[in-house]
């Protein structure tokens, strides 16, 4: 019986974190591409006073009630940021920082106030700071699933409009698409995606769930749809991995565990992803440089031989060394070309192009002329 209960809790937690990871991964894709990652941070911090107020007003800890409070506060925060940037000379980043800290401060004040409430057990609210996956119950997961489902369906329905909004909002405007409403809509979806995760990941680190999976996904693909899918899967994996780790180890807060996991994905992606990964780029550059260097030697041999009416005319290494002073490098290049069957060495130590080598030279020269 005990075992069954544990599995049951575990399954609830797994399902809940998978859903929140997938939803925040999908919306994070757009947030990252629209350079709104920090807006996510402001929204999640700003949600805290919303949670506190919702609890004070209703005395309820039902997840839907708290999520509505969090959502309204988060949404209000984005509206304030917009208002401040459009009507004052305060810049976007300053406005974000301002709103984030003021709302978060207000949230902490409210939490302390609630702590002194006579009949309220506020332990549940504390977990909203750093997240507590173990506190998820079936009701919470159902709420998360329904809200998350709505967000994903909306994203899918308006996919092409949101894509254009993210890529070229002015062009969207010129097609008389309602850019302002699309913007509000997409931001609202982002707020909902954040709100879904607050109980599990916590307000302090929730923005990482928006940014990290999308940033990792960007490394692997050049297609928006594929990027969103990879981001969703990454988000879900991080969510589940982090939640399982934190629930199996007592008192480990879930948010940090999930975020450490997501950070791992980002680092690995930045290092090894094809095309964009750092290691991949290094390797490609080295290969490219090596190819150019040996091609240069090959072409020099071609130039020298051309003066003799015989393209296969052999030359001593010394003749080439006039052009390529570094002895070791030159010898290595010649050996490498020999390995590719483009040059051959005579017993005298002289080097000559093979028929294949002559062909390659002609192709190279053709390409360069074009």
């Amino acid at each position: 019986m005990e075992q069954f209960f544990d599995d049951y809790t575990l399954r609830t937690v797994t399902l809940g974190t998978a859903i929140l990871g997938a939803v925040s991964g999908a919306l994070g894709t757009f947030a990252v591409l629209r350079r709104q990652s920090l807006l996510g941070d402001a929204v999640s911090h700003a949600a805290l006073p919303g949670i506190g107020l919702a609890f004070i007003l209703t005395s309820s800890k039902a997840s839907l009630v708290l999520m509505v409070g969090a959502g309204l506060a988060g949404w209000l925060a984005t509206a304030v940021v917009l208002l401040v940037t459009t009507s004052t000379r305060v810049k976007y980043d300053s406005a974000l920082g301002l709103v984030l800290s003021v709302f978060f401060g207000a949230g902490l004040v409210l939490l302390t106030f609630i702590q002194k409430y006579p009949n309220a057990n506020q332990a549940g609210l504390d977990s909203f700071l750093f997240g507590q996956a173990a506190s998820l119950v079936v009701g919470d997961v159902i709420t998360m699933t329904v809200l998350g489902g709505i967000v994903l369906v909306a994203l899918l329905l308006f996919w092409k409009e949101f894509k254009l909004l993210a890529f070229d909002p002015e062009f969207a405007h010129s097609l008389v698409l309602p850019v302002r409403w699309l913007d509000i809509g997409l931001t609202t979806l982002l707020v909902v995606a954040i709100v879904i995760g607050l109980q599990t990941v916590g307000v302090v680190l929730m923005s990482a769930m928006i940014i990290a999976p999308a940033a990792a996904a960007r490394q692997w693909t050049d297609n928006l749809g594929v990027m969103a899918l990879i981001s969703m899967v990454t988000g879900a994996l991080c969510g589940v991995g982090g939640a399982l780790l934190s629930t199996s180890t007592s008192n480990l807060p879930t948010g940090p565990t999930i975020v450490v996991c997501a950070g791992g994905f980002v680092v690995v992606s930045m290092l090894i992803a094809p095309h964009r990964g750092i290691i991949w780029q290094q390797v490609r550059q080295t290969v490219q440089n090596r190819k150019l260097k040996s091609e240069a030697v090959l072409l020099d041999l071609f130039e020298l031989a051309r003066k003799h009416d015989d393209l296969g005319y052999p030359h001593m290494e010394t003749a080439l060394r006039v052009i390529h002073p570094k002895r070791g490098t030159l010898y290595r290049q010649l050996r490498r070309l020999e390995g590719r069957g483009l040059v051959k060495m005579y017993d005298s130590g002289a080097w000559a192009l093979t028929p294949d080598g002559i062909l390659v030279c002609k192709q190279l020269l053709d390409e360069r002329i074009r």
Partner: protein
Amino acid sequence: MVNAIEVRDLTVAYRERPVLWDIDLDVASGVLMAVVGPNGAGKTTLIKAILGLMKPAAGQVRILGKPYRNVASSVGYVPQRGTVDWDFPTSVLDVVLMGLYGRLGWIRRPGRSERKEAIAALEKVDMAGFAHRQISQLSGGQRQRVFLARALIQDARVYLMDEPLQGVDATTERAIIDILHSLRSSGKTVLVVHHDLQTVSTYFDEVLLLNVRRIASGPVSEAFTDTNLGLTYGGRIAIIKDAQ
């Protein structure tokens, strides 16, 4: 016959500073017009105000005799290349298809026939071979051609282009000019923000000289005079013309 573009008493201000002051402009149908003027003259602002992207402080704009909203599907827009993030994860074909989003309406996705149209538009700008390239892999001139293809697919009657020849190589410039001329010969009206004074008279029929106010507009032979250039650029420009 109704003018393609009619601008009346247009004033646009950014905060308290006027960027465009009391502009009147008529562009007849089938005309290829250059908009020239120094930096900060309000060339881009004029285009944006015509498209309704910027709210005028005063005045009004009519396109084909109607407000922009009612004729948006007949207007094609080529923004400056630098206004978008070319590292966005999307392909050349996808960008061109965006030109059809207005016509497609909500929720519907572009399908096979739309993709065919997009390829045809790319062929016109000689970029069909790049359809599946990621856009960050394109050169500046290629990016400009892609933006042009996105406008061509709109099959508009009036085109507004912001610096399409800025920083492109000679081949691309030639190709773009050919397209502008073929647009004109099929009766389209094209307004082009242009920066190279040397080519105004060879490429364009009419010209608008702009420096916050409208200095002059009309056929190049009449409006593009040393006096007007001096008024637009502040006196120094005649030297360049003499050197030509």
